[in-house]
């Protein structure tokens, strides 16, 4: 993302213009734009013109519109952001108050005006504009009959393709059916890799599975590559990294990202550090339950006591519709930061973020045990369960 200009008043209102450059920037934009903000961007609109004689003709015009955002849609697979709202700036073609849906496009400037730019939003802009942070890793988690081809970017884990094939079991005299099914499965995974992984961007490809599936698959793939003379695979053979995972389901990515050999290769991605942090939270919960808490009420009280050492919060909470709630969460982040605690905003697109989302979206490791929190009953957990 490129920052074009930034005008922020003392009271926190103001506008920022950005140019998204890659699909991940759309994710950042999705996290920045909230309902009630106004967005200016160039767009195409079908305009009907009525001539003096009464005949009407319609044609498409490109124009720049400013809308006050009412609904925000994000397609995680295609990384397309769609904003719907009313036009608020007079325009040659579009009446005031007319509805329009903006599709944010790559490499086209958009300006975002917010009534209040809080610290979380500003941090997001900074992060989005940091050019060093892009390091793409592809991962294939698989088990016999099931595979997920995923792309791990700094702030997103995208499942590019899911392969789910029935493999007949071995049975007396029918071993070849099992092997045939297995080969068919490997072939499908290989096609998935070729189709969805761009080797010019990806730093490494992780193959993870329980047992010997990964080795068998890797052998099969290389054999096939030699057979069909697939230069792409052969040249990038060194990019493949084989690690152990417990299953072919998506959340076993968490185990993969904790593997030391993987960490070496992708040390700068956010995903791995988030996994590690969440893991340490769970370890703390096991060893010293009075030092690890989750849920908004508990965190707020711990924050009042300035007890938070590391705060984990999912970015989903900042996307919530309710402005008041967002403010509350922002204030927790701000005040705990003031108190010198480490605040990590998890991306809800990563596996660890998904888990944190389920865990009320907010959790913290404390500096000192607060057993009194534990005793106060968790009546609040119901309200936060969704």
């Amino acid at each position, binding site marked *: 993302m490129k920052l074009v200009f930034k005008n922020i008043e003392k009271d926190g209102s103001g506008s920022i213009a950005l140019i998204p450059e890659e699909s991940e920037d759309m994710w950042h934009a999705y996290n920045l734009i909230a309902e009630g903000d106004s967005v200016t961007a160039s767009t195409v609109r079908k305009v009907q013109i009525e001539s003096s004689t009464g005949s009407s003709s319609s044609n498409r015009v490109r124009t720049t519109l400013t809308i006050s955002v009412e609904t925000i849609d994000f397609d995680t697979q295609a990384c397309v952001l769609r904003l719907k709202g009313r036009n608020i700036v007079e325009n040659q073609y579009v009446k005031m108050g007319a509805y329009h849906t903006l599709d944010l496009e790559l490499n086209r400037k958009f300006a975002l005006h917010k009534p209040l730019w809080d610290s979380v939003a500003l941090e997001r802009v900074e992060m989005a504009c940091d050019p060093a942070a892009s390091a793409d890793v592809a991962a294939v988690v698989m088990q016999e009959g099931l595979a997920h081809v995923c792309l791990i970017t700094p702030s997103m884990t995208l499942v590019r393709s899911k392969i789910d094939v029935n493999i007949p079991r071995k*049975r007396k005299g029918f071993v070849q059916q099992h*092997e045939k099914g297995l080969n068919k499965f490997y072939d499908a995974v290989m096609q998935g890799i070729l189709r969805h992984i761009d080797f010019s961007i990806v730093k490494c490809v992780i193959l993870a599975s329980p*047992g010997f599936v990964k080795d068998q698959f890797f052998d099969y793939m290389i054999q096939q590559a030699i057979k069909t003379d697939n230069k792409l695979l052969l040249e990038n053979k060194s990019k493949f990294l084989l690690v152990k995972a417990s299953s072919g389901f998506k959340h076993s990515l968490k185990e993969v990202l904790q593997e030391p050999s993987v960490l070496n290769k992708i040390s700068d991605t956010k995903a791995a550090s988030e996994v590690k942090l969440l893991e340490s939270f769970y370890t703390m919960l096991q060893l010293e*339950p009075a030092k690890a808490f989750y849920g908004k009420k508990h965190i707020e009280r711990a924050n009042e006591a300035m007890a938070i050492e590391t705060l984990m919060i999912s970015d989903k909470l900042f996307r919530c519709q309710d402005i008041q709630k967002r403010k509350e969460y922002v204030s927790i982040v701000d005040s705990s930061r003031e108190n010198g605690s480490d605040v990590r905003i998890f991306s809800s697109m990563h596996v660890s973020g998904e*888990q944190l989302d389920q865990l009320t979206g907010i959790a913290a490791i404390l500096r000192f045990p607060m057993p009194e929190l534990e005793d106060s009953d968790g009546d609040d957990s119901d309200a936060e369960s969704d």
Partner: protein
Amino acid sequence: MARHRNVRNRNYSDDYDYDDVYGHSVEEDSCLSPSDTAQWMYDRSRNQQAISNFLDNHNDIQEEAEELPEPSVRTLDRRESMDLRGLNLNEEDEAKLMSCLDELRNVLGDTIPENILVQSVLTHKFNYNKALDEILNNKSKDEGKCKPQPAIQVPTVLIEPIKAPILTTGDKTPKVIATKIEPNKVAVIKGFKIEDENIKSCPQTPRDQSPANRERTPSRLEQADENKVIIKIKENKSDPNTQFLNERGSDKDHLYIVVIGHVDAGKSTLMGRILCELGEVSQRTLHKYEQESKKIGKQSFMYAWVLDETGEERVRGITMDVGRAQFETKTKKVIILDAPGHADFIPNMITGAGQADVALLVVDATRGEFESGFELGGQTREHALLVRSLGVNQLAVAVNKLDTTNWSQERFDEITKKLKAFLKQAGFKDSDVTFVPCSGLTGENLVKNSTEPELLKWYSGPSLLEVIDKFNVPQRLVSKPLRLSINDIFKGTGSGFCVAGRIENGVINKGDKVLVCPTKEMAEVRSLSINDLVSNVAFAGDQVSVTLSGVEMQNVSIGYILSDPIQQVPVTSRFEARLVVFNVKVPITKGFPVLIHHQSLVESANIIKIKALLNKSTGEVLKKKPRCLGNNSVAVVDIEVCRPICIERYKDVKELGRVMLRVAGVTIAAGLVTDIFTT
């Protein structure tokens, strides 16, 4: 991929639309698979439309039929007319025939195909009594073909004990009708459609007389007759127990036994050896294995190769998928399921253990080996816990490789003592656990009592085979509605495809209609085989492979349930369970992503709510909404599965009410389903 297709909401009538197009031949739909084609051909003949509409000579026939004095049901009309068309009868004869047929049907129900009825009526010149006699006599001749109809005044010939095989048109009908009760079933839609058409037209084709039509025709008649339906269903229900007795009463009991234990404890070798000693493996094969294993320098694996068949398994020298074999003891027919011991293949082991009645735990008595298998994270522990949680309560422990310790009693006692304490904790009763010293490789104390003097000094108990023979066979719930969990799908030799699995409840007959859940598609059972032997009927507890028709192979996947179409298995994505937490590294919290193992199904799931922490022994609520669950706790939680699955309350169907939760390759908890939320 295929699994994602939302088949449940599919409007079946759409699929049949093209049947309504005149002159549309099935051959034109080139995309159909052979199994489908078979079905469509069959259906088309039911929608007797094609050429018949172009023949105008039977319009008046239809009218005749409608004017019949018989107050018989509407649906009958066209059935009558259809058979008559080809016969070129005059109006008077036709009316006679009509009334004869109705009388016959009143007596016979729908067990006899219509054209036979017509035939006999005609041969006896519309003499109803004679015709009836002839039909009944014929019927009693080909015995077992038809089931008696209760509640009708039938000659005594018919009332005889119901014997399998009862797979006939007659037997089939109740199932078809059953679908009528569930309003959204395939057959019903078809049926109604036809009835509508009846009123308007009376299309006929020669196909009506084709054998394919016979089975369906009576069923249509029956749909109109609710009373009969109920009688029939009831009769069908009381049936299975007697059927089971007839079929299996004289046979040896089937016992499914899963062989578990730490990797390299010698499970496959032990089983291979038993099979060899019992003569289930031919000398030639064994010799071949011996030669081949020698060639790659792993001669000790020769017995294991009996069960480890894939090249991969042999090269690596470990079992990867459940191996299967059978032998007979004095009183039982034993089917062994040889589970893999390697930690990576526990999902396979769970599949195997889910099908078993009893378990054989193999431990390696070699110094150090037993300990490594038994310590935390060893498979001896995990497997024993798993099989217990999967409902196995009888266990034999084979203390294997005791020859390496020179049959030392001390070692045996040491292992026994350690295991006893652990197994008790895991929930096995002392009386249900038997310890047997043995050696798989040398074959000591397996089939025959040992001759080893060192062992005889202190051991005089039974051999392993005797222990297996002494296991109690659990009761088979044959009278409950059918539940068959699929654990394998493969292409059979003939048409259609096969699914293999274990029948948890109920009976399955050849020709039955079954519902494939959770997609809720109807399928028909083409054939059945138990342990590679073709059979006409299979009962709860059996491991069967079923050839299905009527569904696409890619629409069925492992973990699906074949269910009774009336009493369906619940399908849900959210349920409440009582969990027993094992040793966990990190506590379980809300939102914990887990893998759920349910029968052969593995699916990712989330714990979405922790409702209460319970006292382990009394079940009292210790704390409501605890923050997390630690080691060895018992709790009530809500679990949400990514995709809808078939699941039952534990109190309804035990086997389908158990779930295992695993994370990162470790079993963290076992659960019993206490409530199912409809989503």
